[in-house]
Protein backbone atom coordinates (compact mmCIF):
# COMPACT_ATOMS: atom_id res chain seq x y z
CA UNK A 1 0.00 0.00 0.00
CA UNK A 2 1.27 3.43 -0.81
CA UNK A 3 2.34 5.57 2.12
CA UNK A 4 -0.46 7.72 3.43
CA UNK A 5 -0.09 11.32 2.45
CA UNK A 6 0.45 13.73 5.32
CA UNK A 7 -2.66 14.98 6.96
CA UNK A 8 -2.21 18.51 5.68
CA UNK A 9 -1.79 17.57 2.09
CA UNK A 10 -4.78 15.36 2.26
CA UNK A 11 -7.08 17.78 3.91
CA UNK A 12 -6.13 21.15 2.65
CA UNK A 13 -7.36 20.51 -0.82
CA UNK A 14 -10.73 19.53 0.50
CA UNK A 15 -11.36 22.07 3.22
CA UNK A 16 -13.16 24.86 1.48
CA UNK A 17 -10.09 26.08 -0.36
CA UNK A 18 -11.83 29.26 -1.38
CA UNK A 19 -12.38 30.15 2.23
CA UNK A 20 -8.82 29.32 3.12
CA UNK A 21 -7.45 31.49 0.38
CA UNK A 22 -9.80 34.26 1.33
CA UNK A 23 -8.44 34.15 4.84
CA UNK A 24 -4.79 34.22 3.92
CA UNK A 25 -4.77 37.84 2.87
CA UNK A 26 -6.46 38.72 6.14
CA UNK A 27 -3.87 36.83 8.09
CA UNK A 28 -1.07 38.17 6.04
CA UNK A 29 -2.29 41.73 5.85
CA UNK A 30 -0.78 42.24 9.24
CA UNK A 31 2.57 41.21 7.89
CA UNK A 32 2.43 43.01 4.62
CA UNK A 33 5.90 43.92 3.55
CA UNK A 34 7.06 47.39 3.03
CA UNK A 35 8.17 47.33 -0.59
CA UNK A 36 10.37 50.35 -0.32
CA UNK A 37 12.22 52.29 2.32
CA UNK A 38 9.59 54.98 2.11
CA UNK A 39 6.82 52.53 2.70
CA UNK A 40 8.80 50.95 5.49
CA UNK A 41 8.56 54.18 7.38
CA UNK A 42 4.82 54.54 7.01
CA UNK A 43 2.66 53.12 9.72
CA UNK A 44 1.60 49.55 9.17
CA UNK A 45 -1.17 48.28 11.42
CA UNK A 46 0.24 46.27 14.25
CA UNK A 47 -1.62 42.97 14.18
CA UNK A 48 -4.08 43.06 17.00
CA UNK A 49 -5.98 40.02 15.82
CA UNK A 50 -3.47 37.44 14.79
CA UNK A 51 -4.25 34.14 13.22
CA UNK A 52 -3.84 31.86 16.19
CA UNK A 53 -3.44 31.74 19.94
CA UNK A 54 0.03 30.39 19.39
CA UNK A 55 0.82 33.48 17.43
CA UNK A 56 -0.99 35.95 19.66
CA UNK A 57 1.09 34.65 22.50
CA UNK A 58 4.08 36.44 21.09
CA UNK A 59 4.44 39.99 20.07
CA UNK A 60 5.23 40.47 16.44
CA UNK A 61 8.87 41.41 16.14
CA UNK A 62 8.26 43.55 13.17
CA UNK A 63 10.72 45.80 11.57
CA UNK A 64 7.84 47.91 10.45
CA UNK A 65 6.82 50.72 12.75
CA UNK A 66 3.57 49.63 14.32
CA UNK A 67 0.74 52.09 14.67
CA UNK A 68 -1.00 51.14 17.85
CA UNK A 69 -0.56 51.27 21.55
CA UNK A 70 2.59 49.63 22.85
CA UNK A 71 2.56 46.00 23.77
CA UNK A 72 3.23 45.53 27.45
CA UNK A 73 6.79 44.46 27.95
CA UNK A 74 5.79 41.20 29.55
CA UNK A 75 4.98 37.91 27.96
CA UNK A 76 1.53 38.01 26.46
CA UNK A 77 -1.06 35.77 28.05
CA UNK A 78 -2.54 33.25 25.62
CA UNK A 79 -6.22 33.75 24.96
CA UNK A 80 -8.22 31.25 26.94
CA UNK A 81 -10.23 28.94 24.76
CA UNK A 82 -13.96 28.99 25.41
CA UNK A 83 -14.20 25.35 24.39
CA UNK A 84 -13.84 22.69 27.04
CA UNK A 85 -12.39 19.93 24.94
CA UNK A 86 -12.60 16.41 26.26
CA UNK A 87 -9.04 15.22 26.83
CA UNK A 88 -7.47 13.06 24.18
CA UNK A 89 -8.00 9.48 25.20
CA UNK A 90 -8.31 5.89 24.16
CA UNK A 91 -11.55 6.46 22.30
CA UNK A 92 -9.81 8.88 19.93
CA UNK A 93 -8.28 8.20 16.57
CA UNK A 94 -4.81 9.65 16.62
CA UNK A 95 -1.55 9.38 14.77
CA UNK A 96 1.84 10.56 15.81
CA UNK A 97 3.63 9.95 19.09
CA UNK A 98 1.58 10.10 22.27
CA UNK A 99 4.25 12.27 23.88
CA UNK A 100 4.40 14.73 20.98
CA UNK A 101 4.99 18.34 21.94
CA UNK A 102 2.10 19.45 19.78
CA UNK A 103 -1.33 17.86 19.61
CA UNK A 104 -3.63 18.99 16.85
CA UNK A 105 -7.25 18.03 17.47
CA UNK A 106 -9.39 18.27 14.36
CA UNK A 107 -13.17 18.18 14.43
CA UNK A 108 -14.12 17.50 10.88
CA UNK A 109 -16.46 16.10 8.34
CA UNK A 110 -15.25 13.96 5.47
CA UNK A 111 -17.77 15.41 3.06
Amino acid sequence: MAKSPPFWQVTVGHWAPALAWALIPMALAACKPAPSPTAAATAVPFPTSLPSPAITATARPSILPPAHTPTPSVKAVPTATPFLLPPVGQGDWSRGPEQAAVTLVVYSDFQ
Partner: protein
Amino acid sequence: MHPQDLRIVYRHFPLPSIHDKAILAAEAAEAAGEQGAFWAMHDLLYTRYQDWASLSPEGFQAWLVERAEGLGLDAEAFAQSLATHRHRPKVEAALRQALELGLPGTPTMFINGELVRFGPDIRLLEAAVRLALLRPRQLEEPPPLTLKEDRIYLATLHFDVGDVLIEIHPQWAPQAATVFVFLAQNGWYDSNIVHRVLPGTLVELGDPTGTGYGIAGFFYDLETDSEVTFVEPGMVAMSAASPTTNASQFFITLTPLPQLNGTRSIFGRVVAGLEFLAALPAREPLENLLEPPGATLLSISIGEP
Protein backbone atom coordinates in the same frame (compact mmCIF):
# COMPACT_ATOMS: atom_id res chain seq x y z
CA MET B 1 5.84 17.09 8.65
CA HIS B 2 7.07 16.94 12.24
CA PRO B 3 6.87 13.15 12.65
CA GLN B 4 8.38 13.30 16.14
CA ASP B 5 6.63 16.36 17.46
CA LEU B 6 3.12 16.28 16.14
CA ARG B 7 0.16 14.15 17.08
CA ILE B 8 -3.03 14.51 15.11
CA VAL B 9 -6.36 13.55 16.64
CA TYR B 10 -9.43 13.23 14.45
CA ARG B 11 -12.92 13.64 15.90
CA HIS B 12 -16.08 13.30 13.86
CA PHE B 13 -18.19 16.36 13.28
CA PRO B 14 -20.41 15.20 10.40
CA LEU B 15 -22.97 17.69 9.24
CA PRO B 16 -25.86 15.60 7.88
CA SER B 17 -28.06 18.62 7.26
CA ILE B 18 -25.79 19.91 4.52
CA HIS B 19 -23.86 16.77 3.61
CA ASP B 20 -25.93 13.75 2.67
CA LYS B 21 -23.06 11.30 2.98
CA ALA B 22 -21.27 12.76 5.99
CA ILE B 23 -22.56 10.22 8.48
CA LEU B 24 -21.90 7.34 6.12
CA ALA B 25 -18.35 8.53 5.50
CA ALA B 26 -17.73 8.72 9.23
CA GLU B 27 -19.22 5.25 9.65
CA ALA B 28 -16.91 3.98 6.91
CA ALA B 29 -13.88 5.41 8.71
CA GLU B 30 -15.04 3.70 11.91
CA ALA B 31 -15.68 0.43 10.09
CA ALA B 32 -12.17 0.61 8.64
CA GLY B 33 -10.87 1.57 12.07
CA GLU B 34 -12.38 -1.58 13.46
CA GLN B 35 -9.91 -3.39 11.19
CA GLY B 36 -7.01 -1.12 12.07
CA ALA B 37 -7.33 1.10 9.00
CA PHE B 38 -8.99 4.27 10.22
CA TRP B 39 -6.28 6.56 8.85
CA ALA B 40 -6.06 4.69 5.56
CA MET B 41 -9.79 5.28 5.08
CA HIS B 42 -9.45 8.86 6.33
CA ASP B 43 -6.79 9.55 3.72
CA LEU B 44 -8.74 7.77 1.00
CA LEU B 45 -11.87 9.78 1.70
CA TYR B 46 -9.94 13.04 1.39
CA THR B 47 -7.71 12.19 -1.53
CA ARG B 48 -10.52 10.63 -3.56
CA TYR B 49 -13.13 13.16 -2.55
CA GLN B 50 -13.86 14.14 -6.12
CA ASP B 51 -14.67 10.53 -6.94
CA TRP B 52 -17.40 10.14 -4.39
CA ALA B 53 -18.70 13.62 -3.68
CA SER B 54 -21.47 13.48 -6.25
CA LEU B 55 -22.54 9.86 -5.73
CA SER B 56 -25.88 8.98 -4.20
CA PRO B 57 -25.65 7.57 -0.66
CA GLU B 58 -26.29 4.08 -2.05
CA GLY B 59 -23.68 4.57 -4.75
CA PHE B 60 -21.23 5.85 -2.16
CA GLN B 61 -21.77 2.81 0.02
CA ALA B 62 -21.03 0.55 -2.94
CA TRP B 63 -17.97 2.64 -3.80
CA LEU B 64 -16.69 2.27 -0.24
CA VAL B 65 -17.05 -1.49 -0.31
CA GLU B 66 -15.20 -1.63 -3.63
CA ARG B 67 -12.33 0.37 -2.15
CA ALA B 68 -12.19 -1.66 1.05
CA GLU B 69 -10.24 -4.48 -0.49
CA GLY B 70 -7.68 -2.06 -1.89
CA LEU B 71 -7.03 -0.91 1.67
CA GLY B 72 -6.35 -4.47 2.71
CA LEU B 73 -9.65 -4.77 4.58
CA ASP B 74 -11.90 -7.74 4.96
CA ALA B 75 -14.42 -6.33 2.53
CA GLU B 76 -17.24 -8.54 3.66
CA ALA B 77 -16.95 -7.57 7.29
CA PHE B 78 -16.59 -3.93 6.22
CA ALA B 79 -19.73 -4.12 4.08
CA GLN B 80 -21.58 -5.75 6.94
CA SER B 81 -20.59 -2.98 9.32
CA LEU B 82 -21.86 -0.37 6.91
CA ALA B 83 -25.07 -2.20 6.09
CA THR B 84 -26.02 -2.66 9.73
CA HIS B 85 -24.83 0.85 10.69
CA ARG B 86 -22.88 -0.75 13.45
CA HIS B 87 -20.91 2.43 14.15
CA ARG B 88 -23.72 4.93 13.77
CA PRO B 89 -24.23 5.34 17.53
CA LYS B 90 -20.58 6.25 17.98
CA VAL B 91 -20.67 8.74 15.11
CA GLU B 92 -23.88 10.30 16.38
CA ALA B 93 -22.45 10.55 19.87
CA ALA B 94 -19.42 12.35 18.43
CA LEU B 95 -21.71 14.71 16.56
CA ARG B 96 -23.71 15.46 19.73
CA GLN B 97 -20.50 16.14 21.59
CA ALA B 98 -19.25 18.51 18.90
CA LEU B 99 -22.57 20.35 18.87
CA GLU B 100 -22.59 20.62 22.66
CA LEU B 101 -19.13 22.14 22.53
CA GLY B 102 -20.57 24.81 20.27
CA LEU B 103 -17.92 24.42 17.62
CA PRO B 104 -18.36 26.96 14.85
CA GLY B 105 -18.15 24.55 11.92
CA THR B 106 -15.89 22.12 10.15
CA PRO B 107 -13.08 21.81 10.33
CA THR B 108 -12.45 23.24 13.78
CA MET B 109 -8.94 22.70 15.03
CA PHE B 110 -7.15 23.03 18.32
CA ILE B 111 -3.41 23.14 18.84
CA ASN B 112 -2.51 22.05 22.36
CA GLY B 113 -6.05 22.86 23.40
CA GLU B 114 -6.13 26.34 21.92
CA LEU B 115 -8.56 27.13 19.16
CA VAL B 116 -6.93 27.70 15.80
CA ARG B 117 -8.35 31.03 14.73
CA PHE B 118 -7.58 30.99 11.05
CA GLY B 119 -8.64 29.20 7.92
CA PRO B 120 -7.16 25.80 7.25
CA ASP B 121 -4.17 27.12 5.38
CA ILE B 122 -1.20 24.81 5.45
CA ARG B 123 1.33 27.58 5.98
CA LEU B 124 -0.48 29.01 8.95
CA LEU B 125 -0.87 25.56 10.47
CA GLU B 126 2.81 24.94 9.93
CA ALA B 127 3.60 28.29 11.55
CA ALA B 128 1.39 27.52 14.53
CA VAL B 129 3.03 24.13 15.03
CA ARG B 130 6.52 25.62 14.84
CA LEU B 131 5.56 28.31 17.34
CA ALA B 132 4.11 25.74 19.72
CA LEU B 133 7.36 23.79 19.46
CA LEU B 134 9.33 26.93 20.28
CA ARG B 135 7.52 27.59 23.54
CA PRO B 136 9.52 25.22 25.73
CA ARG B 137 12.71 26.97 24.62
CA GLN B 138 11.49 30.45 25.49
CA LEU B 139 12.90 32.43 28.39
CA GLU B 140 11.13 34.71 30.85
CA GLU B 141 13.78 37.37 31.31
CA PRO B 142 16.44 39.05 29.22
CA PRO B 143 20.00 38.20 30.22
CA PRO B 144 21.82 40.57 32.62
CA LEU B 145 24.24 43.04 31.12
CA THR B 146 27.64 41.42 30.90
CA LEU B 147 29.40 43.08 27.98
CA LYS B 148 32.01 45.76 28.56
CA GLU B 149 30.61 48.96 27.15
CA ASP B 150 33.99 50.35 26.18
CA ARG B 151 34.81 47.35 24.00
CA ILE B 152 33.87 46.27 20.53
CA TYR B 153 33.10 42.59 20.03
CA LEU B 154 33.40 40.75 16.75
CA ALA B 155 30.71 38.34 15.65
CA THR B 156 31.12 36.08 12.66
CA LEU B 157 27.81 34.97 11.24
CA HIS B 158 28.45 31.75 9.37
CA PHE B 159 25.82 31.55 6.64
CA ASP B 160 25.60 28.76 4.12
CA VAL B 161 26.19 31.42 1.49
CA GLY B 162 29.25 32.93 3.17
CA ASP B 163 30.51 34.55 6.36
CA VAL B 164 29.34 37.97 7.48
CA LEU B 165 31.53 39.77 10.00
CA ILE B 166 29.84 42.15 12.41
CA GLU B 167 31.19 44.56 15.00
CA ILE B 168 29.05 44.59 18.12
CA HIS B 169 29.04 47.92 19.95
CA PRO B 170 27.57 47.51 23.44
CA GLN B 171 27.83 51.25 24.03
CA TRP B 172 25.25 51.91 21.32
CA ALA B 173 22.55 49.72 22.83
CA PRO B 174 23.80 47.74 25.85
CA GLN B 175 20.78 45.53 26.40
CA ALA B 176 20.24 44.77 22.73
CA ALA B 177 23.93 43.90 22.27
CA THR B 178 23.85 41.70 25.36
CA VAL B 179 20.76 39.88 24.15
CA PHE B 180 22.33 39.27 20.76
CA VAL B 181 25.57 37.93 22.21
CA PHE B 182 23.79 35.86 24.85
CA LEU B 183 21.44 34.26 22.34
CA ALA B 184 24.25 33.74 19.83
CA GLN B 185 26.37 32.00 22.43
CA ASN B 186 23.47 29.81 23.47
CA GLY B 187 22.71 28.66 19.96
CA TRP B 188 19.38 30.45 19.64
CA TYR B 189 20.28 31.76 16.23
CA ASP B 190 21.88 28.57 14.93
CA SER B 191 20.15 27.17 11.85
CA ASN B 192 17.85 30.20 11.60
CA ILE B 193 16.84 31.03 8.09
CA VAL B 194 16.92 34.56 6.76
CA HIS B 195 13.16 34.80 7.07
CA ARG B 196 12.50 38.20 5.54
CA VAL B 197 14.33 39.75 2.63
CA LEU B 198 13.35 43.13 1.24
CA PRO B 199 15.90 43.28 -1.56
CA GLY B 200 17.88 46.47 -1.56
CA THR B 201 16.41 47.41 1.82
CA LEU B 202 17.12 44.90 4.55
CA VAL B 203 17.22 41.28 5.63
CA GLU B 204 15.70 40.00 8.87
CA LEU B 205 16.57 36.91 10.83
CA GLY B 206 16.82 35.56 14.36
CA ASP B 207 13.59 33.55 14.46
CA PRO B 208 14.13 29.81 14.92
CA THR B 209 10.66 29.15 13.52
CA GLY B 210 11.27 31.14 10.35
CA THR B 211 7.70 32.42 10.61
CA GLY B 212 8.49 35.99 11.58
CA TYR B 213 6.63 35.44 14.86
CA GLY B 214 9.12 33.44 16.87
CA ILE B 215 10.92 35.22 19.69
CA ALA B 216 13.02 34.24 22.68
CA GLY B 217 10.14 35.05 25.00
CA PHE B 218 11.24 38.23 26.79
CA PHE B 219 10.99 41.90 25.96
CA TYR B 220 13.11 44.88 26.98
CA ASP B 221 13.13 48.59 26.35
CA LEU B 222 14.11 50.19 23.09
CA GLU B 223 17.55 51.80 23.26
CA THR B 224 18.59 54.45 20.78
CA ASP B 225 21.63 56.64 20.39
CA SER B 226 21.22 59.83 18.38
CA GLU B 227 24.83 59.53 17.22
CA VAL B 228 24.25 56.10 15.71
CA THR B 229 21.84 56.08 12.81
CA PHE B 230 20.87 54.14 9.73
CA VAL B 231 23.09 56.37 7.68
CA GLU B 232 24.73 53.62 5.70
CA PRO B 233 24.15 50.00 4.67
CA GLY B 234 25.16 47.22 7.03
CA MET B 235 23.66 48.53 10.25
CA VAL B 236 22.56 45.72 12.58
CA ALA B 237 19.55 46.41 14.78
CA MET B 238 16.93 44.64 16.82
CA SER B 239 13.51 44.22 15.23
CA ALA B 240 10.76 45.96 17.14
CA ALA B 241 8.35 43.96 19.26
CA SER B 242 6.36 47.14 19.83
CA PRO B 243 7.17 50.83 19.40
CA THR B 244 8.99 50.81 22.72
CA THR B 245 10.27 47.27 23.11
CA ASN B 246 12.66 44.85 21.49
CA ALA B 247 12.74 41.09 21.47
CA SER B 248 15.24 38.80 19.76
CA GLN B 249 14.88 39.06 16.00
CA PHE B 250 17.26 41.40 14.27
CA PHE B 251 17.82 42.89 10.87
CA ILE B 252 20.70 44.08 8.74
CA THR B 253 20.23 47.02 6.42
CA LEU B 254 21.23 47.01 2.76
CA THR B 255 20.80 50.73 2.21
CA PRO B 256 20.57 53.89 4.31
CA LEU B 257 17.22 53.87 6.12
CA PRO B 258 17.04 57.25 7.88
CA GLN B 259 13.31 56.86 8.36
CA LEU B 260 14.05 54.20 10.98
CA ASN B 261 16.34 56.46 13.01
CA GLY B 262 15.30 56.60 16.63
CA THR B 263 12.89 53.69 16.27
CA ARG B 264 15.23 50.70 16.37
CA SER B 265 18.14 49.72 18.60
CA ILE B 266 21.28 49.62 16.48
CA PHE B 267 23.87 47.46 18.18
CA GLY B 268 26.33 46.66 15.44
CA ARG B 269 27.46 47.05 11.91
CA VAL B 270 28.70 44.76 9.18
CA VAL B 271 32.38 45.06 8.35
CA ALA B 272 32.59 42.28 5.78
CA GLY B 273 30.34 39.96 3.81
CA LEU B 274 27.33 42.21 3.30
CA GLU B 275 27.36 41.26 -0.39
CA PHE B 276 26.14 37.75 0.50
CA LEU B 277 23.02 39.21 2.09
CA ALA B 278 22.53 41.82 -0.62
CA ALA B 279 22.28 39.04 -3.20
CA LEU B 280 19.34 37.24 -1.57
CA PRO B 281 15.98 37.02 -3.33
CA ALA B 282 12.87 38.55 -1.80
CA ARG B 283 11.21 36.55 0.94
CA GLU B 284 8.21 37.06 3.19
CA PRO B 285 8.22 34.77 6.22
CA LEU B 286 4.66 33.46 6.13
CA GLU B 287 4.01 33.70 2.43
CA ASN B 288 7.17 31.77 1.60
CA LEU B 289 7.24 29.64 4.74
CA LEU B 290 7.33 26.33 2.93
CA GLU B 291 9.85 27.40 0.33
CA PRO B 292 13.57 26.88 0.81
CA PRO B 293 15.31 29.93 2.24
CA GLY B 294 17.76 32.05 0.30
CA ALA B 295 20.23 31.69 3.15
CA THR B 296 20.56 29.96 6.50
CA LEU B 297 22.60 31.18 9.43
CA LEU B 298 24.45 28.07 10.51
CA SER B 299 26.12 29.47 13.61
CA ILE B 300 27.66 32.58 15.14
CA SER B 301 31.07 32.85 16.73
CA ILE B 302 31.69 35.75 19.07
CA GLY B 303 35.25 37.00 19.41
CA GLU B 304 36.40 37.97 22.87
CA PRO B 305 37.27 41.64 23.21
